[in-house]
């Protein structure tokens, strides 16, 4: 494995019953690389992310995170997940905890940090996403964009080696996506390794090191954003970009 490769996905398969959702996905992610995965819905993008942190068990192939094969039968799943931050489309904030409580519960219950240490670190993570003044609020008192930023802070609090974003802005009103994308942009600049499933083409163009186009459970095409958007090689990618380009999501 190359020194700079942090995540290696090899011949990954996933089927639900007789439906093959992933049909042999190969992807290497380098340290500090930002990859945006695009593609029509129902092509396995979210399933791919769920396989990477083992929320879904792959049916074939292997995934390596640094030196660990996380798909090995006896892999310590809980420990592996601590190294992988996950941000959900529906935020999934813990409803009974404040913004700060959401960020610190993993530190205290999983990492075993003392509560005052966790508090301090939690506040600095909230600071990082620009929400320190909302620390005492409950999820129901936050806007969608704020919820998602708390979700990002919660994942950052575990000091992940890689962050997975599963359509982080798809459940947001258009005027709220900006604040979330800004936080993600900042993380990318800070050198976080990120794998982002998104329909935000402007974000992909600007922030991604590589754009990956998935369809029908396989990666059809990948490349640096300039190439990917300017001179797509496959017919399917061209068609997808044409459809997306005409949609109001494009800015």
């Amino acid at each position, binding site marked *: 494995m190359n020194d700079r490769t942090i995540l290696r996905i090899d011949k990954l398969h996933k089927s639900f019953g007789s439906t093959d959702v992933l049909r042999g996905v190969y992807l290497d992610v380098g340290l500090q690389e930002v990859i945006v995965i695009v593609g029509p819905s129902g092509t396995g993008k979210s399933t791919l992310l769920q396989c990477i942190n083992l929320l879904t068990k792959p049916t074939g192939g292997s995934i390596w995170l640094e030196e660990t094969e996380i798909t090995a039968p006896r892999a310590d799943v809980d420990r592996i997940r601590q190294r992988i931050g996950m941000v959900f489309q529906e935020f999934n904030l813990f409803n009974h905890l404040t913004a700060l409580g959401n960020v610190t*519960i993993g530190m205290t219950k999983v990492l075993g940090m003392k509560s005052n240490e966790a508090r301090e670190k939690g506040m600095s993570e909230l600071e990082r996403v620009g929400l320190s003044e909302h620390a005492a609020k409950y999820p129901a008192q936050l806007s969608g964009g704020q919820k998602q930023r708390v979700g990002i802070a919660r994942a950052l609090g575990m000091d992940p080696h890689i962050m997975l974003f599963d359509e982080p802005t798809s459940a947001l009103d258009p005027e709220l996506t900006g604040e979330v994308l800004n936080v993600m942009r900042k993380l990318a600049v800070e050198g976080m390794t990120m794998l982002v499933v998104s329909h935000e083409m402007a974000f992909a163009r600007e922030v991604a090191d590589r754009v990956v186009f998935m369809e029908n459970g396989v990666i059809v095409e990948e490349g640096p954003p300039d190439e990917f958007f300017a001179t797509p090689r496959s017919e399917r990618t061209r068609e997808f970009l044409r459809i997306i380009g005409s949609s109001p999501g494009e800015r």
Partner: protein
Amino acid sequence: MEGFNNILTMFRFLLPGLWVTLSVTAIALVLGFGLGTVMAVARVYGGPLSSRLAAAYSIIVRAVPVVVIIFILFFVIAAFVDLSPFLSGALALGFASGAYQTEIFRGAILSVPRGQMVAARAIGMNRLKAIRSIVLPQAIRIAIPAWSNEVTLVLKDSTLVFVIGVPEILRRAQYASARTLEPFLAFGAAAVLYLLMTFLASRLLDVIEQRTKLMM
């Protein structure tokens, strides 16, 4: 003056029964809460064996009249272990209430959004920690209205321990009625006490529900 004196005397006579009723109810509710949460977790998250055992407990116990459970505990089990009538009655009520509370908490756990568990696992919590720190605290809040109803039911079911001679309110009221030949006064006073307890318990739980309300 005479009548007022009688009423006061009657309440004073029933008062020791009030403590017995309250302690029987409290023990039964606490035991039922423990059994109910454990069995509900087993039903929702347990393996095939534990979820089936929990389901069997809930179905069988809810199908048997509470008074039969009291008799079984007092006449059968208490023959082997040393159990006072008071303790037999309280434990039997708790065992019965546990089955109802299993259903209350099972419904509440199922109404916690699935994403909560997923997010908890994603930050590296194991199943047990996720259930304890994320799912149950929310489920218990959701369960409060149904649980409040169960409190009043157990409070009234506690009259059943009267059949094994525990001197709770009803037992003492019956005694007073036989002595004074004034059944209306005796049972009316008992009814007033139950009304008061039920009312206060519901109010208390309403306040708790408001204070801990989850905004989702």
